[in-house]
């Protein structure tokens, strides 16, 4: 036996467990690192300018502002994991936001039922995306571009001019302005993700994203899994629409438009791989908070707000380039 024959197995076990874990979760780790850095920078700027640490008010408003984006980003993550992309996010948020502004009235039970129906409406929109992408075997980017247009039209049909109102109790429940209680919802979402990740569905979603043909060969029902992924995405965008309506205490059939692009930004910053198969809800939530923190930092740096998108764009490119670079360094040993 030549000595090198025994080499490969030993080479495999040589890799320490920690390095393996870091390599597998490098996207998430980077997202957490960027978020921590941006929070520290923000806090430092705040202390310099206000002579105190950011208090309950600042934290609460940051959390509440980020809620819709965080939820939309989790939905986008599930779709992106299947190697898809969903541009209809903005349309679903527009529509559900408009529906919320009109139908959210009356007592607690009525509002609860309406909320559930609105979430289901988002689910139907996602289901349609999924059905067309799945059965039509069409590219997600063009399908969801078309449904985006349809949903935007429907939203304006439902609520032609900004208006309507959200009961104060509803706003207080979702986006309490006195304390960052909305974080509880994110914790719930993260818990839900842990369940999802370990469920048959979650495993299938990741499998499709990594290698669809191999997944199908192993018995994964790719079509059904994709349809479910888009449907869950649609429901999460609808929840984002409800949070948006609650924090604006009214409806506007166009405020959701931005979320199509910002949800993709949040997903990318959160370490979710746009080519599928890698990512997590916690990453997406981090990505959403990074997006908000950048705006806060630019504000405290007294950057002319007109230049805001310039710095955001620049930051996005730099973050992605360095993320890829560090990822390659960490995984480089392989």
């Amino acid at each position, binding site marked *: 036996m030549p000595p090198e024959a025994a080499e490969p197995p030993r080479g495999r076990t040589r890799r320490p467990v920690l390095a393996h874990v870091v390599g597998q979760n490098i996207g998430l780790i980077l997202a957490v690192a960027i978020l921590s850095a941006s929070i520290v920078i923000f806090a430092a700027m705040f202390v310099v300018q206000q002579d105190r640490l950011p208090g309950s008010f600042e934290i609460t408003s940051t959390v509440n502002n980020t809620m819709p984006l965080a939820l939309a980003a989790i939905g986008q993550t599930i779709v992106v994991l299947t190697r898809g*992309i969903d541009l209809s996010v903005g349309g679903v948020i527009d529509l559900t936001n408009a529906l919320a502004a009109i139908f959210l009235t009356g007592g607690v039970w009525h509002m609860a039922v309406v909320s559930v129906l609105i979430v289901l409406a988002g689910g139907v929109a996602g289901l349609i995306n999924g059905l*067309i992408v799945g059965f*039509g*075997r*069409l*590219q997600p*980017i*063009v*399908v969801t*571009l*078309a*449904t*985006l*247009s*349809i*949903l*935007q*039209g*429907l*939203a*304006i*049909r439902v609520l*032609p001019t900004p208006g309507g109102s959200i009961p104060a109790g509803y706003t207080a429940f979702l986006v309490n302005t006195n304390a960052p209680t909305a974080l509880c919802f994110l914790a719930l979402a993260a818990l839900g993700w842990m369940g999802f990740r370990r469920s048959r569905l979650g495993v299938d979603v990741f499998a499709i994203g990594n290698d669809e043909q191999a997944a199908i060969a192993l018995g994964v029902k790719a079509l059904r899994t994709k349809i479910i992924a888009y449907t869950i995405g649609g429901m999460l965008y609808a929840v984002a629409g409800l949070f948006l309506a609650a924090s604006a205490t009214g409806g506007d059939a166009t405020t959701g438009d931005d979320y199509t*692009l910002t949800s*993709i*930004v949040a997903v*990318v910053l959160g370490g979710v791989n*746009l*080519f599928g198969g890698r990512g997590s809800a916690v990453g997406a939530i981090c990505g959403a908070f990074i997006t908000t923190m950048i705006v806060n930092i630019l504000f405290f740096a007294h950057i*002319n707000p*007109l*230049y*805001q*998108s*310039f*710095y*955001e*764009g*620049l930051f*996005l*490119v730099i973050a*992605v*380039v360095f993320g*890829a670079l560090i990822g390659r360094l960490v995984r480089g040993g392989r």
Partner: protein
Amino acid sequence: MKRLSLSPDALRVLAAYGAAVLLFVIGAFVHPGFASFGSITSILLVATFVGLVAAGQCFVVLVGGIDLSVPWVLNAAAILLATSSLGQDSRAAYAVVLTLGMGLVAGFANGVGVVWLGVPAVVMTLAMNGIIEGLALGLTGGMTCGACASYAPPVIAASVHDVWLGVPAALWLWLVVILIVSFVLGLTRFGRITYAIGNNPRAAYLAGINVSLTTVCLYGLSGLFSALAGILLVGFGGQASLGMGTPYLFQSIAAVVIGGVSILGGRGNYLGAAAGAVSLTALVSVLLALNMPDYGRSIIYGVVILALLLLYGRDQRE
């Protein structure tokens, strides 16, 4: 499906032209005079702007990319043309060169990001859109600068509106662009390389093609065409305004897709995309003639695109 001797790609292009003709016929029924010569040329003139942006989008989509930076490259081009020419004919040539250069540089930057920095096309061009939006807004103080209110130089306005042989000049320009782009894609080495990369970048690389450089050039061309559309739009409307580029992202992608260009790359041509631009504009015009409100147009727009996609856009690679 080999019932016809035509290739599926040619069928798609024919379908796009058929859709355009059908829409004009429907328009003539619902609104007398819709298919008159004057009405057709004015619809085609509006389609020109979409068509020019779609030319750039077509190049990028053919290699499996996408350019989301269209809205603000176009808008910044419009603003730059107005502010650098100050409405004077003597400065028009300089302004046009400067503006096209800006578009080219923005496009090249996209290409460099996608190819050499390894940023996904969606993210890179999205970020570029933001970068240019911020620069355009910041440098003009939100369009409050003195030069921002400048009108397009008369010579540029004339190059859009002037009628040659009964047809607006911009349409002739588009025709030239259609011929050049079709020639480049169909009959030159550059075109062959583009399709090769779109079909299989790895195989193209192994065949000795400079994939990186070609891709960067294609993104550069996309920026160039967005800027050209911006210049003509200022000439068409007289002034630059904020948000004027926004509709063109959706429309350029829709035109390319309706025209039978595969979003995965490697299949389709600009003749189809141009037909897609005409069909889209004709569709909007028909809906306007029907007094369809905004929301209805938006819905029908989406439904028609989905219908066309389902009709012939099936992903045949599976």
